[in-house]
């Protein structure tokens, strides 16, 4: 029974990891930017949510309405200034600049908010409650909600990219920037929109993780960024549904690892990641196989 439980929990945490990963995947797919500050920005979103909730006493769910647009705006601004500036120079500079941002944000959080971890207290019975399946399997409502949110976000992204006007622009610019520019698209603005979308998902991921577990300044890199990356690589670069599958595989691997030895949770996930890297470097669902 323990194994079945582990797999169910793993699948559900996979939704959370897919939420971590989709912003990373989107920014790479569109701008060829690997944002090394991805995880730290998620932690920033979580901290902002905690701040907003403590100051204004609004219900937790309302904080999403404030923090997600705020982060999206930050994404647009960062993309149009620092990240675009770095992109204009070279991919190498982009990496160096986002890595610099990551270290600065992480140490800034450490300096201002100490190394203590903090959770986003929801006070909602829906969030802290759980239901039981059979006699031993206990499933938290929160994880189910997060999984559902991840699926909705992925579906929404998919729909946005394939159907909407901006989605078409984003795909056009990602496919051939010069041709899109000749057709009148301002690629910088389009990149900004894509970054805003990615940062919106980053905010969702940060707040969701803060509700599910605890946020500390180092969570951004040692959990969010690395798990997001592992999910992207396992699933296959550039495929949104591959990202969900990658998140689920990572989550299941971690839960099975934890089942074997409680301290091996993270290690088991990484070992599966390395195995995929060696045996199937294009990921479980590769873009080439799809088309």
């Amino acid at each position, binding site marked *: 029974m323990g194994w079945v439980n582990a797999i169910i929990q793993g699948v559900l945490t996979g939704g959370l990891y897919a939420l971590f990963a989709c912003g990373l995947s989107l920014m790479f797919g569109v701008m060829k930017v690997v944002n090394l500050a991805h995880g730290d920005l998620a932690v920033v979103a979580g901290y902002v949510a905690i701040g907003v909730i403590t100051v204004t006493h609004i219900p937790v769910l309302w904080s999403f309405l404030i923090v997600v647009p705020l982060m999206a705006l930050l994404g647009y601004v960062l993309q149009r200034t620092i990240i675009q500036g770095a992109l204009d120079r070279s991919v190498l500079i982009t990496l160096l600049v986002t890595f610099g941002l990551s270290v600065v944000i992480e140490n800034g959080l450490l300096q201002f908010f100490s190394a203590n971890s903090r959770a986003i207290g929801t006070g909602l019975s829906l969030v802290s409650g759980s239901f039981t399946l059979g006699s031993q399997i206990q499933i938290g409502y929160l994880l189910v909600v997060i999984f559902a949110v991840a699926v909705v976000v992925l579906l929404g992204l998919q729909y946005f990219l394939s159907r909407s006007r901006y989605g078409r622009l984003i795909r056009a610019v990602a496919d051939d920037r010069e041709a899109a520019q000749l057709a009148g698209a301002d690629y910088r603005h389009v990149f900004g929109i894509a970054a805003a979308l990615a940062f919106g998902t980053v905010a969702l991921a940060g707040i969701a993780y803060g509700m599910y577990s605890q946020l500390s300044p180092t969570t951004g890199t040692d959990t969010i960024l*690395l798990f997001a990356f592992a999910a992207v690589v396992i699933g296959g670069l550039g495929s949104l549904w591959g990202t969900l599958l990658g998140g689920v595989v990572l989550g299941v691997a971690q839960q099975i690892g934890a089942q074997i030895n409680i301290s091996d949770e993270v290690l088991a996930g*990484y070992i599966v990641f390395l195995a995929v890297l060696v045996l199937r470097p294009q990921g479980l669902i590769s873009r080439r196989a799809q088309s």
Partner: protein
Amino acid sequence: MSLVSETTARPAAGFRVARSRRNVAWTGAAALIVVVVLAFFPYIVYSGTTTIVVQAFIVLTMASMWNLLAGYAGLVSVGQQAFVGLGAYFVLILALHGISPFAVLPVAAIGCGVVALPLWWLVSRLRSGYFAIATWVLAATIMLIIEKFSSIGGGTGMPLPGLAGLSPALLTAYTYWAGLAVTVVALAAVYLLLRGRLGLVLTAIRDDEVAARSSGARVGLARLLVFVVAGAGCGAAGALLAISQLQVQPGAVFSVQWTAEMAFVTIIGGLGTIEGPILGTAVYMVLQQTLASYNAWYLIILGLVAIAVALFARRGLWGLVDEHLHVRLFPVGYWLRRDGERPRGLRRPAKPREQRPG
């Protein structure tokens, strides 16, 4: 196996390719004097000062290796802390078996170079950003594996044995000399590598990878060589770190902060120049010493400066020096000269070379 499968390039008639000799002789002499003066430091300064200089040696060695990776081979590794940690653990494990930590230093470096081979195989197919995070995941994985062995301290680490017999003064002096030796060997290795075939191949890759491949440069082999050397160098720095701290703690030696420091030091000093990390280390030490009582602030400021330098002064501080004074302490490039023209040391290459990612 040679780095270049066949050589077809010849300078056009009427030109010849030369390296300024005079410059090298002068800098060689100056470097020798600097090293000799540094070697006498333990006799003339307080042990507090030598401890700080050892820290600078560690940072300089790491930064030179990172510079080789990112500045010359276009490999942005965010996982060099893997080798720092492994170097420290090589020292700890062999010290637990009764071997003197100082004797282990070269073993740790070679060991890390050997470990770099399978790791390269894992990450070599990834490019730029994905290479960066994959090395980071590798470092995290190696730390998690090492933490599983309780005989070497598990998750909490343990003090380094084998040095208790030395008097404190002697220990500081030995550590200092070991640090000096590691740094000199590391810098000399980087210089000689870049002066030789490898430097040429790397420059070719940086300027145009496809063109380099089609003219016979073995791109993969050149990158492998750089990754192994950088692994060995960071391993030596990690071994030195273990000796200077007298304890090995997995969270500390495998911290991504090491890679942050190497990257910032290199970017600020000047990516893709041998002089850059030296200048960057000086800036680092000044910041770190003045802001020592403000916890992580030195790293925040260093990071902000590095971002600004990466965006607005790509060639770093050394680039500024070079622009105004036209000097190269470690000339690894070549000048193209007309026949009969006298070599002049104070000539710059026609155009600052573009950094290209791998």
